[in-house]
C-alpha cells in the first residue's frame, strides 16, 4: 500500500482509538458493548417474565430451582461507522523548503485512522472533496478494506478550489447518525462557515475529529522581499512585500486558528493541528492521547 506500509503498520500497533460513549449508542451489530440489550454471549441479567416475552428467552434451569419464570437477558454488541473526510483541494498540494506536501501527509493520517477504526472491528469509509472529482469509498468492517482505501487515495490528487463547508454539509446528509467523522484539511477557508458545517455534523450525534494539516511556512510566513504568490487552488496571483505583510499574516493566521480551536471545543469536536515538519505518527499519537 502506498500510504500504509509495514513500517507504518508497526508504528500503529501500539495505538488505539478510544471514542468513549459513542460506540455503545450504535444500533449496528458489532463488537462494542451497547446500552441496548440484545444477542451476545455476555450475560446481562435475569428479569421476571412478562406476557409477550418470547418463550425461548426463559431460563428453564432457574425455573427448575425457583419454580418461577425468569427471562435471561444478554448484553447487546454494536458496530461503529467511521468516515474520513479528506480535503483534496489544490491548497493541499503545497509544500515548502523540501518538506512533504500536505496531501501526502494527510493521506498517511487518513490511512492510519482508517486502520485504527478497522482494527477496532468498526467500519471505515472515505470521502474526498475538493476541486476534482469527489471520491467516496463506503464504510466496511473488513481489514481488507484498507487496500481499497489506499487505492482510492493513490488515484486521487489535490487540485482545484475546495469548498469545505459545502462538502461537510453534504456529508452530514449522506452519513448515518452516530458515526465517527474525521475531517482532515488545511482549514484555510474562513472559519465561520466551516465551524457551522461541523456543528451540523455534531447535531446528528456524530463524533467529529478535526485534523488541520499545515506546512510550517503557512504558519510562519518566512518569505522575504517582493514576492508574487500564486494560489494553488485558483491560480490567481498576489504581489506584496512579504516582510511587510508578515506580521499582519501571522496575526490573521493565529486568529483563524484560535477560532477553530474555540469553535471545536465549544461543539465537542476534537481539534488538532498537524504541521508537516512533525512526523505524522507522532502527530497522530499526540492527538490520540489527547482524546483520552
Amino acid at each position, binding site marked *: 500500500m502506498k500510504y500504509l506500509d509495514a513500517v507504518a503498520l508497526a508504528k500503529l500497533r501500539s495505538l488505539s482509538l478510544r471514542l468513549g460513549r459513542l460506540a455503545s449508542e450504535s444500533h449496528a451489530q458489532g463488537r462494542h458493548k451497547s446500552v441496548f440489550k440484545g444477542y451476545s454471549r455476555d450475560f446481562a441479567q435475569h428479569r421476571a417474565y412478562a406476557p409477550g416475552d418470547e418463550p425461548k428467552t426463559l431460563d428453564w434451569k432457574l425455573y427448575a430451582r425457583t419454580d418461577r419464570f425468569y427471562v435471561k437477558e444478554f448484553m447487546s454488541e454494536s458496530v461503529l461507522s467511521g468516515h474520513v473526510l479528506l480535503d483534496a483541494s489544490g491548497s493541499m498540494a503545497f509544500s515548502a523548503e523540501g518538506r512533504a506536501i500536505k496531501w501526502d501527509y494527510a493521506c498517511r493520517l487518513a490511512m492510519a485512522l482508517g486502520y485504527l477504526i478497522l482494527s477496532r472491528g468498526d467500519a471505515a469509509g472515505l470521502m474526498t472533496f475538493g476541486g476534482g472529482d469527489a471520491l467516496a469509498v463506503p464504510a466496511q468492517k473488513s481489514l481488507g478494506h484498507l487496500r481499497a482505501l489506499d487505492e482510492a487515495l493513490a488515484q486521487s490528487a489535490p487540485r482545484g478550489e475546495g469548498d469545505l463547508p459545502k462538502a461537510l454539509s453534504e456529508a452530514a446528509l449522506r452519513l448515518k447518525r452516530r458515526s465517527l467523522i474525521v475531517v482532515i484539511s488545511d482549514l484555510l477557508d474562513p472559519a465561520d462557515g466551516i465551524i457551522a458545517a461541523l456543528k451540523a455534523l455534531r447535531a446528528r450525534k456524530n463524533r467529529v475529529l478535526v485534523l488541520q494539516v499545515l506546512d510550517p511556512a503557512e504558519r510562519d510566513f518566512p518569505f522575504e522581499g517582493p514576492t508574487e504568490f*500564486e494560489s*494553488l487552488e485558483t491560480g490567481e496571483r498576489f504581489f506584496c*512585500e512579504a516582510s511587510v505583510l508578515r*506580521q*499582519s499574516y501571522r*496575526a490573521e493566521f493565529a486568529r483563524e486558528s484560535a477560532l477553530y480551536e474555540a469553535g471545536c471545543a465549544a461543539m465537542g469536536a476534537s481539534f488538532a493541528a498537524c504541521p508537516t515538519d512533525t512526523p505524522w505518527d507522532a502527530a497522530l499519537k499526540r492527538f490520540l492521547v489527547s482524546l483520552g
Partner: protein
Amino acid sequence: MIFSAPAFLWALPLAAAPLAFHLIFRRRAKRVPFSDTALLRRAYSRTKPLSRLRQWILVALRCLILLFLILACAGPVLESSGGAGTGAHGVDLLLLLDRSYSMRYRERGKTRFEQARRLAEDILALLSPTDRAAVEFFSNKPEAPGGAFFWMNPEQAQAVIKKARPGYGTTDYAAALSAAQDFLRKDRGGRRRTALILSDDARSGFSGAPPKLDSSVLWLGLSWPKAANFFISSVKAAPGALASGPSLNATVSGLASENRDSMEAYLGNQRLPDAVLRGSGPVRRAQETLPAAAGSSAGAWSGRLALRPDALKADDEYYYSLRAPARPRVLVLYGAGSFFSLPEPGYFLRPLLGGSRAGLLPFDADFLPLNRLSQADLSRYGAAFLADARGLTAGEAARLKAFVSRGAGLLVLSGASRDPGALAERLPWLCAGLGPAVAAEEGGIKPGPGSPKGAWDGFELGRVILGRYNLLQPKLGARVVLESASGYPILVWGRFGEGRTEVWAGSLNAAQSNLAIKPVFPVWAQTALEGVLPAAPRLKSLSLKVGDPIVRRWPETQAAPASVRVALPDGRSAPVWLKNRTLDFPDTDAPGLYSVSDAAGQNWIYAVNLDRSSGESDLTETSSPPWQAVPAHESAAFFSSLIHGRSARKRLLAAAALILALEMLLALGPRAAAAALLLFVLARPAPAAPAASAQEGDRFIWTQLKLGDTWDPYPNVPKQILDYVSRLTSILVAPGRRVITLRDPALFSSPLVILAGSDAPPILTEPETDALREYFDGGGLLWLEDVSGMQESPFDAWVRKTLPEVLSGANFQDVAPDDVIYKSFFLLRGPAGRIMTRGTLEKIVWNGHTAVIYSRNDILGAWALDPLGKPLYPCLPGGEAQREMAKRLTLNLIMFSLTGTYKDDAVHQPYILMKMREDGIP
C-alpha cells in the same frame, strides 16, 4: 539657487536609482506557489495604510537622500543672502589678508600666508569685470595697500595681492574688522557685498569679545586643520651669580607632544652649551648662563636662543641683547708699608678684591697708600675701604668726609688703628663712636638686628675669633650688622650726608683675628662693601618688539655723532642721521639683532623680537568666530559661489542625515536603527593627529625620486647604504626605501631625495616644478646622480637644462675641496664613484643653503653587488680604494643632508673643549 560645482548636477538622475531598483526588483519578484491567497488578501486588508505604503516611503526616502547628497556635492548657494543687493550689478569683495607671523605656519611645503594669498588670487580670477574688489592687509593694525582703501577691478586687486608678503606682527581682528566696516559703510551701492578674512582664525587675535559685524555684508573667514606649535614664550634676563655673566630664564610652550630636552644658545655667532629644558608638559623652562664679561669693563651680551624649528619657525628663536654697567670700584687705603705682608689685612684683601687683576668679588679695587690719597681721583670710586688708618692725617680725613658726604661710602677697620681715640677724633662723623679696645669674649660673633637676611646662612660666625676689639657706640639711626656673642656691636652701618659709613670694631690682622682665614671672609667683605657702595648697577636689556623704533638719545654731556650706521639682521646696513641728538630708526620689521654703530667705533646692539605678549604663537582656533568659517582647502570656485550667495551645502547634508536616520528607523525598526547609529558613532575615525614637524619618528628614510625610465639603476644599493649608515653612525634609519614622485606630499618630509638616471627624464610639468621649488625653499636637498659614466649623457643635458629653470637661473658650481660636504663625517679629498667622469662634485646654492648636489661619477654604482656579494662593477681608475672613497662620500652626503654646515660652524668645539677640560687634558 546656484551651484559652485554644477558638474555634479549631471549625477541628478542617480537620485532615481532606488525607484528604478524597486521597479526592477518588483518586476523580477520571485514567484512563490502558495496554498491559498485568500488568507493573504485578508491579512493585507488588515495591514495599516502606513505599512502598505512603507516600501514606497522607503523608496522615496532613499531617493531624497541621494538627491540631497548630489545637490550638496554640487555646492548649492542660495542667492537671497547678503542683504544689500541681489548681485545683478556685480559683487563687491573686500579681502582682508592677515600678515601676522602666525600665518607663516608651514603645511605641506606652503605657509598659510602663501595658501591664503593663492586662494585670494584664484577667487579674484573668478570675479567678473563688473565686480569690484578691495584689499586690506592687517596684523596688529590695518594697512591699506596704497595708503587708503578703495575699490578696484579684480585684476588690479590680484596684482596687489600678488605683491603681499607676510610680516612679523601680531593679529588684531577688532581693528581690522572695524576698518573694514568703516570702509564698507561709505559705499552702499546696492551690490552684494562680501568680506573675506584670509587669516588663520587663531583666537589670540581677539583680545575681547568679537565685534558686531554689519549684517548686510557676508563675512567669510578661513578655518584650518588643527595645528601644533611650540615656541619660546618668554625670556627674562637676570644678573649672574659670583664670577659669571647674566643668566637667561626662558619659558617654552606648546611642547605637550614634543620630546625636546634642550634648546640651543648662541652668543653672537658662538654656540654656547645647550640650555636644558626642565619640567614636563606643555610649558617647560630653561636657564642659560652667559659667560662673564671679560675684564672689569662693562659687559655686553647679544645672541639668540633657538629651538629646533617646527612648522612655525618665526617663534622658535629669541634674540637678546644685554648690557651691564662697569663694576663698582673700591679704593682700599692703607697706612703701613707692610700692609700686604702676612699677617696684615692686605695679604688677604688683595686676592679677594683683585687690585690690578680681577678679584673674586664683583667689585674692582685699587689699593692706595694713605699718603697718596690727595692724588687719587675719588670720583671713580663708589666707596673707600680704610683698611689701615695708621697715619691718617686731618687733610685726608677731610677728603674722606667730603667723599662720603657726596654719596660715596666708607668702610673703616677700627681695630687696625692702634689709637682708636685719635681715629675717632679724625673721623667723628662715622656712624659709631670708637671706645677703648677690650678683649673679645668666647663665642665669636653673631648677626645683629641690622644684618641682611640670610647673608650668613651656612657659615659658623661663632667660630670667628676677634682677639681684641673696640667698643663701638652706634649713633642715632645706625644699625648693628654684627655683634659679639655678648651683644656688643662689632659691625655698625649708618648714613652720613648722601653717603654711607660702616665701622668694623676689630681687625683683619691674622695675629689678632681669624676672620680672614675663615670661609665666611669673602661673604663678610662682600656684605660690608655692598653696605657702603651705591645701589648695585642693573642689567639693561636692549630689547624691542617688531615694529618698535630703535630710539637712542645721546646726553648733552657726551659728544653726539652726526649719523650712525644701522646694520639689519639680513646683513644690509644703512646710515641714519640723528635729529636733536636722537636716533629714531623705525624699520624694525623683522626679528633679529640690529647693530647701531657710530664713527668712533661705539656699538649698540638691539634685540628685536616678536611680540609674544598677545599669544600669537598659540594657534588654537577661535571657537565661534564672528564670520562664517569655511575650510581653507575649499576651492576658489566654492568661495566664489559663496560670494554670490549663501551655501546650502550644510543644510542639505543635515537633511540627508536626518532622512537617513528616518530610513533606518523605518527599515530596521527602532532597536536596530539605534544600534546602527551607535555603531556608526563608535566607528567614527579618531580626529586626525596634528601635523608632525618631525616625520617618520626622526628616522632617516632613503627617498628616491621616480622620474624617467632609469630612475632606479641599482635597486639593491639602498639597503647596503642604510646598513652602512646605521653601522657607522648614530643615525636612525628606516629599514626600507621610499619611492616618491614630485606630486607626493612625502617629498616635504624627506630631507634628502635621490634622483639617479642615465636617460633624460620627462620635462617637468608646472605643478611638478612648483613642488620642487617649494621643496628647495623649505630646505630640501636633491642628490642627482648620473650613472651613465659618459662625458655627455641625456641625463646630464636634462639636469643642466631643468634645474636652472626650477631655481630661477641658479647655476651649478663646483664643490670646493674644503667644502663641508667632504668633511661632514669622513675627511675626504674629493669626489669618488664607479667611474671618474668628472673631478668635482657640483652643487646649486639656493636661499643660502645647498639645494642640489650633482655627481657624475656614479657613486651608487660603486655599491652595486652581484648575487654572490662581490662588486658588480670595477671602479675606474682607482680600484677598491676608489670604491671605499665612494662609500664614504655617500655617507658624507647623507650626513650633510641631515646636519648642513654643522661641521663648518664648529658648534661642537665648545663641547669637545669642555670634555677635554673635565678630563684634565690641557
